[in-house]
């Protein structure tokens, strides 16, 4: 499939995130989100009233309250009435919506944010509620169990083994030592089986956090950011819900989204992959054909911080930030949703050539 070329130059010009923590009992959602919004606005010098479109991602099931995002909106400064939207999924999809809005020319700037507090409930159980209500949800198969079934398929197929998974965990948390926002900085023992073959180290930490980015189009992006991270392409694709009809060793939706985003036209130097479990990184690197020349998850990835609903947006933000500071020229960012990588979003970000 040929890549779809965007009709307008749009870039990520700023990225901010909270420190990700196991619990944030002292903070309401808006109290957690607001400093991140102020941070990302400060980076660009924009005021809330300068923003053309605002889009957020979160889930009421994490908060345990209906329309919880309307409370978080208090942190934006939504008066006079703003142009706003919300997605009930990871903020990476909010970024996609905002990007499309900018491509239409209806706005020149967008604020995208997302957040998740996993601490009030039990996220392993909460995530069972996204499953098919007839055949799956009544069995309460938790997120670790489903990932473990996928991991065993990979082991059986000879694609990985426990030492290889442990190496992914170690590399991720070792890299996270340089990430001041990470919840699990530095390597740690793999621990016991949570659901065999996945050990504690193969699983993401459970925690709370928020992230925000600002998008801008054309020359405005150049004014707001010394080295904008231009979105050269972005696409998202979904597979069947039933695990039994999918080949769990592969991710055709990731590959197709990557083709449409233009990933395979030229090599990328960096990939921020949204792989909450070590075994899912194995699936993604294979589906994307990433070799040893690509720096994978220099931030530590989801294994170092996993504020559910923000983790995917953080991949886009981390990839962009790497371009902003000149550590990458062409980066891939990926986000996922649903059980065992059911739905996948891929974006290609580039910096202008350096003098």
């Amino acid at each position, binding site marked *: 499939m040929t890549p779809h070329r965007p009709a307008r130059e749009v870039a990520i010009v700023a990225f901010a995130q909270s420190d990700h923590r196991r619990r944030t*009992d*002292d*903070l*309401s*959602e*808006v*109290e957690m989100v*607001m400093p991140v*919004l*102020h941070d990302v606005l400060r980076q660009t010098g924009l005021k*809330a009233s300068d923003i053309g479109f605002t889009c957020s991602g979160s889930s009421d*099931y994490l908060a*345990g309250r209906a329309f919880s995002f309307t*409370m978080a*909106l*208090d*942190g*934006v*400064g*939504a*008066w006079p009435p703003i142009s706003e939207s919300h997605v009930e999924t990871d903020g990476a999809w909010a970024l996609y919506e905002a990007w499309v809005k900018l491509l239409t020319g209806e706005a020149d700037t967008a604020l995208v944010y997302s957040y998740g507090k996993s601490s*009030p*409930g*039990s996220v*392993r*159980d*909460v995530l*069972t*509620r996204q499953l098919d*209500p*007839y*055949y*799956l*949800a*009544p*069995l*309460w*198969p*938790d997120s670790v*169990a*489903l990932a*473990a*079934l*996928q*991991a*065993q*398929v990979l082991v*059986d197929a000879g694609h990985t083994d426990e030492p290889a998974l442990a190496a992914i965990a170690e590399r991720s948390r070792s890299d996270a030592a340089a990430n001041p926002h990470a919840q699990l900085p530095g390597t740690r023992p793999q621990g016991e*089986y949570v*659901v*065999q*073959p*996945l050990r504690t180290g193969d699983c993401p930490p459970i925690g709370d956090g928020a992230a925000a980015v600002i998008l801008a189009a054309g020359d405005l992006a150049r004014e707001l950011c010394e080295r904008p991270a231009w979105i050269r392409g972005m696409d998202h694709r979904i597979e*069947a*819900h*039933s*695990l*039994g*009809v999918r080949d*769990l060793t592969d991710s055709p939706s990731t590959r197709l989204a990557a083709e449409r985003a233009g990933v395979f036209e030229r090599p990328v130097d960096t990939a921020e992959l949204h792989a909450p479990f070590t075994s899912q990184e194995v699936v993604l690197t294979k589906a994307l054909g990433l070799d040893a020349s690509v720096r994978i998850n220099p931030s530590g990835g989801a294994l170092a911080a996993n504020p559910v609903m923000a983790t995917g947006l953080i991949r886009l933000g981390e990839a962009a930030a790497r371009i902003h500071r000149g550590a990458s020229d062409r980066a891939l960012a990926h986000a996922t949703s649903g059980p065992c990588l059911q739905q996948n979003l891929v974006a290609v970000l580039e910096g202008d050539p350096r003098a």
Partner: protein
Amino acid sequence: MTTEAAPPPETLRAPLVVEFPFTRSLGPVQSAFLTGLRERTVLGVRTEAGEVLVPPVEYDPLTAAELRELVEVGVTGTVTTWAWNPEPRTGQPLTTPFAWVLVRLDGADTALLHALDAPGPEAVRTGLRVRIRWAAERSGAITDIACFEPYDSDPVVEPGAHDGRFTDPVTGIVAAARLDYTYSPGRAQTRYLHALAERRTVGERCPSCSKVYVPPRGACPTCGVATTDQVEVGPRGTVTTYCIVNIKAKNLDIEVPYVYAHIALDGAGLALHGRIAGIPYDEVRMGLRVEPVWSEDGRYPDHYRPTGEPDADYDTYKELL
């Protein structure tokens, strides 16, 4: 009274239970499958390409074609992948350690998710032959399969035709779900609730537009900045608008009709909600001056009653409507 924002007091916590028993209707294929389980019969559906999907779906996941050709498959099958679960969680099929499995039943081309009862992980492998253990009481649900158990047998390859007809078919399920949370209200609302327990109503002022929010939620929604200064408001206030409630709410021990009102406490920048009592419902009016009547445990205003003062002038609350 205005004070600097105090350091956050002790974090408040309360259990929060969310239950949602959705009643869901079934299409013809799902109805036949779940009714079949009740009758210890497993049905699949054949796609245009000739594959047999178990569990069956109404539409082909690849082509979206409507699928209606039912077939009966075996109650024995083969494990295609597994994962040992050492600590079963609430609601899962077994309460003792078990293996999650995807099982391709004999005659099916796809696999079904369920639990396998086995003594330990060393007894489980991909390729293991298993059979269904039926639940003693079956109602037409995926849980009519209690679990799988290891069972040596030769695979039956050919699925048999089935018309999907049963007496008294199941047409819907009640999908019960319960999630338990521990709710914490955050800094601003914690300060508010602690003050309420002392029978004081404390709002917070926006440092940008000076509006005083009661109850405070931590941010000024107009300016998008944190509210900072704490401001004690009330206790008296003015009814800015109201409605008469004629329908009794479930689990609420209040006689109808009663009045529910917006009340602007003196010094507050917006109105809060409260019930009005101590006055006939048809005598409540805009501008009525009221004061709180505290709950028996004294932790919050149960309702508001007239103070007996003259009504407030419209100009004093017209910006708070």
